[in-house]
């Protein structure tokens, strides 16, 4: 792991802080019972996440990428315990938190696992002052109880995310989107967590504000030794933030690899497709390859490999047999028959996927 030496918390060793194994989350989307009875319909189960497994070592960032509806947010919510998984385990420091039944049993883990949500407008209570929003975890977890200490701690947290302690007296509507996201970060940090789940934390922000917040998150990770599960559909942001990347399609992980390996030697046809869709800022004249088709309905997924209807390399086996994740030589885990059988030649995108040469970039 010499290549990771420059990243945060590299001294922490390789023991995973979080291990997700065989995670599944199913939602019952059937019509009400009486409708089913009279209309003779069966129950309908939406399998939002199926058989997802990954490890996150302490101090590292693992990212999940994929298009809308691929289940990445469902994984995030299952990890922090907002959803109860339908199957599989979420092991945090050796304890399976997915199997905990009561709020009381869950509570010590809730303090250590926090979440930052996508929409900074919906995730802050508009009728609370910033001071109350940030102090809520302090009070809920009885970290600080005395008013003066709470106030001081809130001030410290706001300073830490680049806001002014005086901002504590204001309401959320007085802040811009980027500043609100910083308030969310301050709230998440209040309980001194080890692990943060960031669900599209910057996709509602303008690029210059996004840069400010991404820098802040990287800086906090370095200073506080945080571990991130980072969810995004923006591949450039994922490349900037992650150590490891998992690509999801229709509720399944199709490829997991170290960041540089994934972007340089993508294996799964869907990963290659996603990399092809990155807008080209280099102006090298590379044309994006528009891919035909759309993501199928997860209520009624195609049999075999979920990607086969859009895959240019699908054959009869892909149409009936679900590919399982297998490790390859480069350390990538990929679930694809074509890769396994060697039908799909390896690709080196050394330069094609890395269009932004440093001397060409301003700033």
């Amino acid at each position: 792991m010499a290549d990771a030496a420059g990243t945060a918390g590299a001294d922490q060793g390789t023991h995973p802080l979080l291990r997700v194994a065989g995670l599944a989350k199913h939602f019952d989307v059937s019509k009400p019972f009486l409708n089913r009875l009279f209309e003779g319909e069966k129950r309908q189960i939406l399998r939002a996440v199926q058989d997802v497994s990954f490890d996150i070592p302490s101090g590292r960032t693992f990212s999940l990428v994929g298009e809308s509806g691929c289940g990445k947010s469902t994984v995030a919510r299952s990890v922090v315990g907002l959803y109860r998984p339908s199957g599989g385990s979420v092991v945090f420091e050796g304890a399976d938190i997915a199997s905990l039944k009561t709020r009381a049993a869950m509570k010590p883990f809730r303090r250590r696992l926090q979440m930052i949500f996508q929409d900074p407008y919906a995730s802050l209570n508009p009728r609370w002052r910033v001071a109350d929003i940030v102090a809520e975890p302090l009070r809920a977890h009885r970290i600080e109880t005395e008013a003066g200490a709470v106030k001081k701690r809130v001030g410290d947290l706001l300073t830490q995310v680049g806001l002014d302690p005086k901002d504590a007296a204001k309401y959320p509507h007085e802040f811009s989107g980027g500043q609100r996201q910083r308030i969310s970060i301050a709230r998440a940090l209040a309980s001194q967590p080890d692990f943060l789940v960031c669900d599209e934390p910057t996709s509602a922000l303008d690029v210059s504000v996004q840069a400010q917040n991404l820098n802040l998150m990287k800086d906090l990770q370095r200073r506080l030794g945080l571990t991130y599960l980072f969810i995004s559909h923006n591949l450039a942001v994922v490349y900037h933030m992650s150590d490891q990347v998992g690509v999801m399609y229709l509720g399944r992980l199709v490829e997991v690899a170290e960041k540089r390996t994934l972007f340089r030697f993508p294996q799964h046809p869907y990963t290659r497709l996603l990399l092809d869709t990155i807008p080209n800022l280099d102006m090298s004249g590379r044309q994006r390859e528009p891919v035909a088709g759309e993501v199928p309905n997860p209520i009624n997924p195609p049999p075999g490999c979920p990607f086969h209807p859009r895959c240019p390399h699908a054959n009869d086996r892909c149409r009936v047999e679900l590919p399982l994740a297998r490790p390859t030589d480069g350390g990538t885990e990929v679930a694809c028959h074509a890769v396994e059988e060697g039908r799909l030649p390896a690709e080196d995108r050394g330069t094609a996927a890395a269009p932004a040469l440093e001397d060409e970039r301003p700033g």
Partner: protein
Amino acid sequence: MAAPLLSVENLRIEFPTRRGTLVAVDDVSFHIDPGEVLGVVGESGAGKSLTGAAIIGLLEPPGRIGDGRVVLEGRRIDNLPYNEMRRVRGREIGAIFQDPLTSLNPLYTVGRQLVETIQTHTDMNSAQARRRAIELLAEVGIPAPDRRIDGYPHQFSGGMRQRVVIALALCVNPRLIIADEPTTALDVSIQAQILALLKRLCRDHGTAVMLVTHDMGVIAETADRVAVMYAGRLAEIGPVHDVVKHPRHPYTVGLMGSIPGIGTEVESLTQIEGNMPRLTDIPPGCAFNPRCPRAFDLCRSTRPEPMPAGEGKVACWLFAEEEAMADG
């Protein structure tokens, strides 16, 4: 040089409020040549969408054009009466908006909406219009158009709806399309499909496009020229290659640096300190001066006009100096 298709001259959009008039777009001028794709970028609140809305006469009151002119093929269109503007809209200027669900009427089939638009602007009978509508749906890549034409918008996916909206915008071959964030609501793989489609159709029909977006990547691969807006003003305009690769205005430089790149290992991204000013307190001089790393006295007192730099124009005093030095 051929006359421009559209020229916007000293456009000013204002919102009267109880506490005085807010100027949302201030003295913006640019032109679009026939068949050209002009990208307009900027962050939220930069005035890019308002500029688009003003051109097609869809400013929401109390917003109004305070000053300036919009000229389409030699004819002034910003002061046309409502009914005449309605005819310009659709026939000469088409529009594509961000959210394909709100730009289609959920109560009518897509066929009916297409036929109605075609019949409003041409004298086709309903059978001809329906045939034209099916052709259009096929052209924008909707499978089985003869069946899908009778579907309602909710029966289409987001990408397919945006294709229908493109078909609506193109149905009477307008000279110009205003596309306001046409792919922002779509997934990346669908985004690539829609941009490729828009580009191909506009090339085939010789339609010019004003592409309003916040995404530099979309601009870089679609536009011929780019206008960068900041706080309601034009910061920089020029050929796409110049602006993306060699941005001149410090704001554009910061904006480009703040985009994470794939393959570049940077510990932190370039960030522009602070936020865009509110419309109520735009600083005197250059609107960008409090955040600008290269600001000097003149920037704080006098507003820079767009001045020629390379093949484009930049509203920044740094370039006036260079010019003066080059002259001297």
